[in-house]
């Protein structure tokens, strides 16, 4: 029940990000969530999109370096404390996050948290046991 995330290399220069998002919008790809982490000279742009296949093709054609990673998408109620619950469950299971970012899904009235952990299957298991719902790839496309 993984969700596919696209990560793109961004050179630290003006227009670097616009270059990527334009390639995606030209291919009619809709970005659901976005997170940017940066070093001094470059950054990694992580994206959740409605059509991973189309996004990959568009990035390839426009000459970008990218990869596709499986991440977990976890749904929480849109209220205080729901994200804490997710982090607590994972922490109690001794799992540390590589990175995480969240977005609000209007149609579902839910906050969706994207998380990357070393052992995805184990994380999935503990979240399920704690009754925290996971979001499927197909659902992301339909948001």
């Amino acid at each position: 029940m993984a969700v596919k995330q696209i990560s793109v290399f961004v050179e630290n220069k003006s227009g670097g990000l616009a270059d990527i998002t334009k390639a995606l919008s030209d291919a009619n790809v809709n970005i659901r969530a976005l997170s940017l982490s940066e070093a001094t000279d470059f950054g990694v742009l992580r994206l959740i999109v409605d059509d991973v296949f189309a996004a990959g093709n568009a990035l390839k054609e426009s000459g970008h370096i990218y990869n596709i990673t499986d991440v977990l998408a976890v749904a929480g109620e849109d209220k205080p404390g729901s994200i804490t619950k997710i982090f607590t469950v994972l922490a109690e299971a001794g799992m540390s996050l590589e990175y995480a970012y969240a977005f609000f899904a209007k149609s579902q009235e839910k906050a969706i948290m994207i998380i990357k952990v070393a052992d995805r299957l184990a994380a999935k298991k503990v979240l399920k046991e704690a009754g925290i719902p996971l979001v499927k790839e197909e659902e992301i496309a339909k948001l």
Partner: protein
Amino acid sequence: MAKKYYQPEIETMPVEQLKALQSERLVKQVKHVWDNVPYYRAKMEEKGVTPDDIKGIEDLHKLPFVTKDDLREAYPYGLLAAPLKDCVRIHSTSGTTGKRVVAFYTQNDIDLWDDCCARALTAVGADEEDVVHVSYGYGLFTGGLGLHGGAHKAGCMTIPASSGNTDRQIQFMTDLGSTILCCTPSYAAYLAESIEERGVKDEIKLKAGIFGAEAWTEEMRRDIENKLGIKAYDIYGLTELSGPGVSFECEEQTGMHINEDHFIAEIINPETGEVLPEGEKGELVFTSITKEAFPLLRYRTKDLCILSRKPCSCGRTHIKMRKPMGRSDDMLIIRGVNVFPSQIETVLLNEGMTPNYQIIVDRKNNTDTFDINVEMSQEMFSDNLAEVTAKEKQLVASLKAMLGIQAKVHLVAPKSITRSEGKAVRVIDKRKLYD
């Protein structure tokens, strides 16, 4: 069955006979130059040498050296040794290291030069069945027309593609079944990348390539060979001497045979000018003994090199030169340390990166800054920033170990470093130390 040699009687001539031929031609050439080039005569007189002192190759060391500065000083006609009406063409150096130099050719000069390139092509297996794809620039640069002439002489179908327009290059390669590619190594690497991207590697019929006009490493050779599925051969030459084909690699790929019936090679100590014995490293010096229009006696190439007359398994008797270990012109002195761009290329390829880089040197507050832009590659990328920065750190450490000084590495977008489709612009030196 492809011919093994283009001119077997010359290429496999016994060494003693070859030396006798060189002596005979040298004596004639010195007289030709003395009679026709006042600039040379003045230089010889200054050293107290006359043509009578030169009885054979053993007297070569008595002659004065010629340097690039002489060529610039004598520009444009000062070293011309034949009447201009007998000249049919000029070529000119790329001017990367200063003022242009112009070289003149008679029809005979062109014929002999074409022979040299035909020898190089035959050595990599070219014959009447082959399609030679020349992606060197055509024009003032000697690469295009040199290999073009050689391919004609070797009887190959020649595609005068010239440089640029990569899509068209690949289209011709697939449609016309090019078998031998001639271009700069940096363009070969670029073509290999582009072929991979378009997914047409299976439609490419290339079997060999002749790549020169730039310094390149063994690592780059292996990279091109693997990516294109070919054998990659080196070729060496200078516009001042004719162009590509002064020396070329045979199937052994262990150095380039110098066409000794046209060029006499010496290795000298670059500091003292003293001639060094075979096998020692020093500056390569050439004397062209058959050129009519633009003969050069003891021309200092600034290339650091080693010569070897060990018998070669290919049967050629002509002396071999190792791949030059950097042209002293290419060498940068950064914070007092000698840096050759080829060292950076070696590190990048060893670290699994693309050999696409650019060095930027500047001087701020009297200290040299040393930046290297490296194109990001798929292999190095990860969704995890920490992994990428770890690889970047590893690269910086390997560069430091190789060069002895710290460089600042910047990872840049793929294909963002300009590929001049003739020669790669590897170095941008903003220090303006020599103006």
